């Protein structure tokens, strides 16, 4: 996660509930982070609405495999819209970490990148090595979207940071940083 948001420039970031929200906070809190603590299955669609509203900004959705699996239809809806400025990245530990590390479908061969590709993400890939991760990073910022990547990670839980769970605060903080005082 730290590598995904390093030198973030004007990147707008949405994190799915659970580990990706904690990892995004651990990588460094930022007003242009929108952290989810619920709304499971909604992260990618929040990214779509944001990408359509801010076509000149790059939008990154970082979410978990369980969260993505709950809202797979979003890949089809994004595939129809073809937003050039949206990247969806799944941090795939093949586990529901929040509920006790039970295996998700991706532990049993479910291929999220193939699903994304079939849904219209022309640029969709699975990242398994450091070299593949290094190759992915510039694409997240520059390659025409919609871009999808699932990054396979180990299911251990490194130290994490809990950001604010005050939804009104993180929403208003995000809007103020992006839009200024205007409503």
């Amino acid at each position, binding site marked *: 996660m730290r590598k995904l948001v390093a030198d973030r420039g004007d990147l707008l970031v949405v994190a799915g509930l659970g580990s990706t929200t904690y990892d995004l906070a651990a990588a460094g809190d930022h007003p242009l982070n929108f952290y989810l603590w619920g*709304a499971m299955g909604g992260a990618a669609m929040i990214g779509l*609405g944001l990408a359509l509203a801010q076509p000149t900004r790059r939008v990154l959705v970082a979410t978990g495999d369980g969260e993505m699996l709950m*809202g797979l239809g979003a890949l089809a809806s994004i595939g129809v819209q073809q937003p050039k400025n949206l990247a969806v990245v799944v941090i795939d530990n093949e586990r529901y970490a929040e509920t006790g590390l039970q295996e998700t479908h991706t532990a049993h061969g479910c291929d999220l990148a193939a699903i994304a590709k079939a849904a219209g993400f022309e640029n969709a890939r699975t990242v398994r090595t450091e070299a593949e991760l290094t190759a992915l990073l510039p694409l997240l910022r520059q390659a025409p979207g919609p871009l999808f990547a699932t990054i396979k990670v180990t299911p251990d839980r490194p130290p994490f940071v809990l950001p604010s769970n005050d939804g009104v605060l993180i929403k208003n903080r995000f809007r103020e940083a992006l839009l200024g005082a205007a409503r």
Partner: protein
Amino acid sequence: MSSDTQAPATWPDDIYGVLVEEKIRQVAYVPDAGHTRLIDRCRGNPAMSAVVLTTEEEGIAMLAGAWLGGERGVLLMQSSGVGNCINMLSLATVCRFPLLMLVTMRGEWGEFNPWQIPMGKGTPPILEQAGVLVHRIDHAAEAAETVQAAARIAFSGDRAAAVLIAQRVIGTKVFK
């Protein structure tokens, strides 16, 4: 329409006019017979992004993203879709995202399909329980003012507001 000889209803045009006036830029929808004309008009407006969804809850998340990015949106669905939205509504209510939903009602007036009745009956109390402010259009002439009232409370009050459009207004689906 309840009859082939009736002139086309104008209430969808009235609602469309309010959406334009309220500067709605993102229109999320699951295709629906009752909303056909409104969806077509929104799709025909280059200032609006009309986004077809696979399930209604996607629209709640999408419109939260729209608001984060400074745009206003609307979610169009029928009453059966309300059931798909329940958990995702917590995104709107916890974060106080403005959310405007226009719901065409099924299962309440001359409904031919009993499978529509549970969500027809359930829609108003379920929305209320989820923390949504519920408005209702029982006569076509009330359409514009009701949508405008709901939009105002949603976007000025940072609240989730739904407008239920009675099945009697839409016309009962008839197989011939």
